[in-house]
């Protein structure tokens, strides 16, 4: 609608129920705070036709008003640089700060460190960039990501100055993701969440855990702190607030974002950042957007082909959109050393392993498209129109590749000893950003 308004024509969106706060946030993010909309109670997508009509009829007066009445500008709150909290002692004042921050949804629910001027100044020593340097406009809300704002959120997360270049690079990488930083995905009602993966010398210098890397505890402290710093940036700079610009239906614990390292020492192949065009001696962070997670167990295969066939079967879950000729499916594969090592030593390059997985990862299109009934659906691409002539049984019997090509899966070696692979539906394609350029 903003595009229509920019053409000088009145535009109104019909917004469903809980999406009104999303409309408020989106209108600000996309530069037209007084954009007009009307609200109906329920999301149309799963309503019967009669209810679609009646809830629209109930909104018609509002719709006419939005198209024909003059518009009052929405009130804007003035941004402040600092906040003050008075308590009986320092700890009490920090508690008060935490309470207000959580009331305003500026935190992740866990205890926040106070970003005092002294702590922020110390954090800023972690980079060569000046505080007012603009790294990017961070999606999905396109907040202006200055180095200072990134530092403030990093302090709140409990991160250290040496972590700051990783956080800056990750923020930059997110803004480079396809589709304006994966904007539509990040705002989706599905639980997409970023995962950060570091390569190069920084992994050991910082103490990132490349083993049993996803989870809480001592071994993953650095993974957690850097991931949390990025997550708070995402929230307060990217304005990725739940029910505003993050419209998850159920949500996911993956939004407690983790930053892990590739287990380069245990890999038979070159590191992922070299695949992405960087030198092995450079340090990088890659941002993947994941949409689910599956543990693919292997209970006895020891041949490369056996391990890869089992893994390929593990990739065949999920759904497939018919909106384009391409399946649109990507998979991030965190392959433990007990799978990668035999595959590599039995002669498979990483590319050959990806091609073998792609060849064997096929699923029933009848199952993959079950989530999107063809009837009443305008988004089926001409490429798939022939499916409309098949019976349900025939659809179940047609198999298609889960991914369009081998390069739609990404293999990184991560993990401790045991042949259990983590597979994530992912996409858009990951972005890798150098870290060294942001170091002091």
């Amino acid at each position, binding site marked *: *609608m903003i*595009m*229509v308004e*920019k*053409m*000088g*024509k*009145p*535009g109104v*969106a*019909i*917004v469903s129920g809980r999406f009104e706060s999303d409309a408020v946030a989106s209108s*600000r*993010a996309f*530069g*037209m*705070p*007084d*954009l007009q909309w009307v609200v109906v109670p329920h999301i*149309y*997508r*799963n309503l019967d036709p009669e209810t*679609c009509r009646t*809830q*629209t*009829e109930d909104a*018609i007066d509002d*719709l*006419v008003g939005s*198209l*024909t009445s003059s*518009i009052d*500008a929405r009130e804007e709150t003035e941004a402040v640089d*600092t*906040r*003050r*909290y*008075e*308590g009986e002692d*320092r700890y*009490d*004042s920090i508690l008060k*700060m935490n309470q207000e921050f959580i009331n305003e949804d500026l935190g992740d629910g866990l205890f926040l460190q*106070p*970003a*005092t001027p002294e702590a922020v100044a110390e954090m800023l020593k972690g980079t060569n960039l000046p505080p007012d340097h603009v790294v990017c406009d961070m999606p999905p809300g*396109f*907040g*202006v*990501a*200055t180095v200072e704002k990134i530092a*403030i959120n990093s302090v709140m997360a409990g991160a250290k100055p040496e972590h700051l270049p990783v956080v800056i690079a990750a923020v930059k990488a997110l803004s480079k993701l396809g589709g304006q930083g994966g904007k539509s995905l990040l705002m989706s009602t599905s639980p997409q969440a970023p995962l950060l993966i570091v390569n190069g010398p920084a992994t050991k210098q910082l103490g990132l855990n490349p083993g049993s890397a996803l989870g809480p505890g001592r071994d993953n402290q650095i993974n957690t702190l850097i991931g949390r710093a990025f997550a708070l940036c995402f929230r*307060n*700079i990217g304005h990725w607030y739940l029910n505003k610009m993050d419209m998850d239906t159920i949500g996911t614990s993956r939004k407690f974002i983790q930053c892990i390292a590739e287990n380069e020492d245990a890999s038979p192949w070159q590191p992922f950042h070299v695949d992405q065009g960087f030198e092995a001696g450079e340090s990088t962070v890659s941002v993947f957007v994941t949409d689910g997670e599956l543990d693919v167990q292997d209970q006895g295969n020891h041949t490369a082909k056996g391990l890869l066939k089992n893994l390929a079967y593990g990739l065949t879950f999920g759904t497939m959109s018919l*909106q384009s000729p391409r399946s649109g499916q990507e998979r991030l594969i965190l392959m433990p050393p007990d799978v990668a090592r035999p595959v590599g030593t039995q002669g498979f390059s990483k590319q050959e392993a990806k091609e073998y997985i792609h060849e064997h990862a096929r699923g029933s299109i009848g199952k993959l498209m079950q989530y999107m009934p063809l009837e*009443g*659906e*305008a*988004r089926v*691409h001409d490429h798939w129109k022939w499916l409309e002539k098949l019976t349900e049984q025939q659809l179940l019997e047609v198999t298609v590749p889960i991914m369009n090509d081998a390069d739609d899966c990404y293999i990184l070696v991560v993990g401790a000893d045991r042949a259990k692979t983590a597979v994530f539906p992912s996409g858009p394609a990951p972005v890798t950003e150098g870290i060294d350029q942001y170091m002091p």
Partner: protein
Amino acid sequence: MHLLEVSNPVAVQRGVLNAISASNRPNSLNNKMVGLIWSGTHGGDIALKRAGEMLQERYDNVSVNFYTGGNYPTPPAIVKQAGEECDVVIGATAD
């Protein structure tokens, strides 16, 4: 007593810095061309068509154009076409 001062973590949004106003509204929809943009998902077409019918019942000489790009979000070319051909436009978001 202790006074704690902390920095604000919230970044101003580029869209707020560069905000523009919505366009002027007509007094009436009489003799107007109404564009209905459907993102292609279930139910949104029914809602938009019903809205178009009701506007035609309320106002004189209202024409309705229905647009769909068969995709989500609606392709910019379709939105641009609607903006060029119509006097007002209605869309359904999160439909």
